[in-house]
Each structure stands twice: as C-alpha cells, then as structure tokens.
C-alpha cells in the first residue's frame, strides 16, 4: 500500500503467538465424556497498526474463534496475545477499562449489538456516559457527530432499531464501536449479509473511517473477493491453523499453498469471464 517510507520495522499492535483454544463440553448427553474440540490449534500472527489484516477461511476453520480470543470474549487455552506491550486475556479485559475501550468488535448481524427497545441515541449515549468520555452536556453533540461520521442524519438518534435497514443498522453498530475511540476494530463477517450494493457502501465507509482515524482492522471473512480489496495482509486459516500468511497482493497473485489456491479458484468470476478477462 501507500505510506512507503522504505521498510522501517513497525511494531505490531497485536501479536498472537502459538494460540490454542479448545472447547471442552464438560459432559455430553447422558453424561458421556465428549472429546474437546480444538478450534484454534497454535496460531501465530502479527497485526500491523493502521492497516487491515484479514483472517480468511471456510466454516470451521477457527477464524471467528481467533477473533473472539483477541476481543477477550474467550479464555485462551494456551499461547498468548499481546496488545502493544500488554498481555491480552479475558481476565485482562475484565480488569482494564482502557482495554475494553481500545478493542471493539462488529458482527455479521448488526441487530446483535443494538437493543431493540432503545432508541439509537440511547444506545450511542451509553458507552459515552459509562466511560465518562464527554461531559453530559456534550453527549448529544457527540452522538450527532458519530452519526454523521457513519453517514446517518442526526435525526436517527430519535428512532428505533427496527426502523433501519440492514446496511443502516451496520452503520449504527459501527458508530457504537467508534464511540469508545478504539484502536482496533474486529469486523466478523461484517458485510457478508448485506446486499451487494449496500455492501460496497459499508466497505467504503470502513475505509474512510480507517483513513480518518488511523484505525487497525482485523477483518474476518469468508469472501475472498471482498478481502482482496480491503486487506493489506491476509491470514489463511484451515482446521484451526494458519496455513498461509502474507501481504494481500502476494497471497492473491502467487499463493504458496494448494489450499489457498483452491480457495481462490473456487470463487465465481462470471463478470470477468464474460468480459474476457479471466481464464
């Protein structure tokens, strides 16, 4: 990408090393022992600040579990995650208000982060008030600014979640995450459920926000075509392992593993084909 002052070594903002996450259902049906499931099986990766690192893979690859470990939603089984200079864990998140603010997450279903019985303004005010980010008298001005930054009108604050379309709800979910002025935004399939035309809007919005706020994105997705246009770096996961890691152009231009190649080859490309550009 741009910002090319030649190869100064930049410290990663997030560093995952040898992360293992297993889920052990204590007892199965009828009290039988159930084998633990290893969702992430020793993954190491580093995330560069101000850039977008995509974690891609098919269902069951462990990409969502990895994202949730970074977000402090799950305990780690072994290995470690560092954010700047401090270790990240579920416990660390519980102890540190600053950590909870710094790393935010948005999901495939934006409704999941919106309370259906709260007006949008209330939902957005909550983090501002809880974290005492702005004096009470400035809260509504801040909400207006937040809504504007995600392309919504100030009047949206007075409305209810159900009055908004899927794309607009995702804008609100983004605004809510931004309210805490995070460093890192984890997007878990955040544009996957949107209509194509709306998906493009949200991707553009995410890019604008990143440029304006120098945010770091961890973009979890199964959609290789979207990833090509949003990510700077890509981690390809399969069966809980990172099978290939590298800059986006290299991964797409010269994949080194058969699995990455098969993932890329499988993407339908009828538009390019009909234009006579592919195959």
């Amino acid at each position, binding site marked *: 990408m741009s910002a090319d002052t030649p190869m100064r070594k930049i410290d990663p903002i997030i560093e995952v090393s040898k992360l293992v996450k297993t889920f052990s259902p204590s007892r199965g049906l009828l009290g039988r022992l159930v084998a633990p499931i290893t969702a992430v099986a020793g993954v190491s990766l580093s995330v560069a600040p101000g850039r977008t690192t995509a974690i891609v893979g098919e269902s069951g690859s462990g990409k969502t579990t990895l994202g949730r470990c970074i977000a402090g939603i799950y305990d780690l089984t072994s290995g470690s995650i560092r954010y700047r200079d401090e270790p990240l864990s579920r416990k660390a998140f519980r102890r540190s208000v600053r950590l909870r603010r710094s790393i935010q997450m948005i999901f495939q279903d934006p409704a999941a982060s919106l309370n259906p019985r709260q007006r949008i303004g209330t939902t957005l005010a909550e983090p501002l008030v809880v974290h005492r980010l702005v004096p009470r008298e400035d809260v509504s001005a801040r909400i207006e600014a937040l809504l504007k930054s995600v392309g919504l009108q100030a009047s949206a604050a007075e409305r209810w979640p159900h009055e908004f379309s899927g794309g607009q709800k995702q804008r609100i979910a983004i605004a809510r995450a931004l309210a805490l002025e995070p460093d890192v935004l984890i997007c878990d399939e955040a544009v996957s459920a949107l209509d194509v035309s709306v998906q493009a*809007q949200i991707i553009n919005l995410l890019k604008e926000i990143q440029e304006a706020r120098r945010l770091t994105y961890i973009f979890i997705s*199964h959609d290789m075509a979207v990833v090509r*246009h949003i990510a700077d770096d890509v981690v390809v996961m399969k069966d809980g392992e990172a099978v290939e890691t590298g800059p986006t*152009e290299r991964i797409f231009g010269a994949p080194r593993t058969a699995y990455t190649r098969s993932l890329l080859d499988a993407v339908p490309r*009828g538009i*390019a084909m009909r234009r006579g550009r592919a195959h």
Partner: protein
Amino acid sequence: MTEAGPVAPLLSVRELCTTVSSAGSEFDVLRGVTFAVDAGEKIGIVGESGSGKSMTALSIMRLLPRSAWIRGGRIVFDDADLISAGSETMRRVRGRKIGMVFQDPMTSLNPLLSIGRQLTEVMEEHVGLGRRESTARALELLERIRVPRARQILDSHPHQLSGGMRQRVAIAMALSCRPQLVIADEPTTALDVTIQAEVIRLFEDLTSEYGTAIILISHSLDLVAQYCDRLLVMYAGRIVESGPATDVIRNPRHPYTADLISSAPDITAPRMQRFKAIAGQPPAPATLPRGCPYHPRCGSAFDRCTQTEPVLGEGSHAAACWLVPELAAAREPR
C-alpha cells in the same frame, strides 16, 4: 434464445403478478414478470433482497406461503397452464417435471426418512419404478454426483450428513426423475466456497447430460454470469434487463445492471481504493417510489423517470429504462 419460431418454449411466464398481504395491507411483490425458458436452456435470475427472485420461483411452483397469491398473469409449462392447475396436477409437475433445489437442503429432505428411502420414493411415485430399480438408480445418481460411500449414505439420515453432502443429496433428488426443468434458488449460498464450486460443477454436468433446463436464482451476479446462458436482472418486482449473459455483462442496458456490475468486488482486479457503491438501498415492496423504482438511486435519472415506469422492451437483449432508444422513442410504454 427466444426466437419467435414454431417451437413453443418449455416454460412461458407472462405478466405474472403476485401479491402479499402483511399487517392488514396488500402489496405486489411481482409486478408483471415476463420471460421464457427453452428446453435445455440455463437462465440466471439475479437480484437483491426484495427484488422478487424467490417469489418468481415459488409462484411457478405454486408453493407460495399462505399470505401470498398470484393475482394475474400466465404460467405455461410444457403446454399446461400452471395457474389454473389443480393441486393434484401440481403434485405431478413438481418433482416429476420440475425439480427444485432450495438454499436450505432440509426444505426438501425429510429428517425422519433415510436418504435411500427419500430418493426411491420420488422415483416410485413419479416414474413408477419398482423398489429394486429405483434403488439402483438412486445409487447410480449418488455415485454420479461423487458422494463417497454412496451405499452407506443410502442408509443414513439427513442429520448424519454435512451441509454440502445434504445439498448434493437434494440435487440428486431434484434430478432423480430427470425433470425437464430445475429451479434452484440460492442452492450454494449456505455452502463454503470450495464446496459451492463443486456443487455447481456437478449441476452443470448433470443438467447438460440430461438436457435439463435450469433457472438458477442468486444474489451473486458473478455466479449466474459464470454458469448461465441468459440473465434476467430483477429489481422491485420486475425484470429490468434480460439478455444473453455476455451481452448483459459487456453492454448492460439498464443503469441498475451497470451499477450492480461495478459494485461487485472483482477478485481478478487489483485492489480498489473505493468501490463504486450504489447510494441508498433496494426499496421495500410496500413503499415503491413513483415512476421507475430505480430512479432515486440512479445516476442517469431524468424527469420522465420520476413520473412513468418504463416497461421491459422486446428483443433478445432488453431493458426497462427510458434511456434505451427503442423505449425513449415511444410516447407511451408499449
């Protein structure tokens, strides 16, 4: 293609209107859908949510939910009028003459019956095969669609199979009676991309071997453009463009199609700083704007577009847009 020849198309849909009632009010989800499918042809229907693509499929199959009904139009399949057909006739058409594949394979699979029983039941019922013949054919079909350990699969139940395997079985079932037409509504949307490619390939093999016509419905223009001969682009309950896939992609005649093409992320292109997004969102069927339903989002809209809705023109590559010369020349639509 639909040349006006002596041969009638396999399926002809004319001015199809379907209405839904919801919360005490009624609105049209299909507002005059017209197209034809020839024997062996592969048609792709592409559209966003609420465009009416699934409603088109359900109307043809007469599988609409209770809250929806066909208000007008004609559906003729293999010389039979499907709109006036009784439920007995429809039962014979479904499965025997028209196969169906849905996004969720469990829509067509019975969780209580073994895979083998479900496959043979269809063939016994519709084609009148005996148990032994139908079992042999079921086995052959599963092997054809590269289901490993086919004999074992025959004895298993749907819940014992993965999503991809279930969808393969659903496809086998849809094709088991060698129907003349298969309607597949988002058949691969719930599947992983590598499995999706495999399922589509298998579809391609079987339909071309049996000469089955197919209507493939998807939100992905890249998918239908890759696989289908002809494309129908739907928006707000109507077909806004139809034509041979290559023509539609290379020279879209409706601004919506052009916008859809440019907003689709292209895996073959180098990184784009920004996508060409379409402003706004697809309209809900209950609140369609006046005039052309696309005009609020359209970069080329002018006065006329806000007043009168254009109708899909005639010809092999047609669009419902006032910018299309044939339509612009006419004083009134049609």
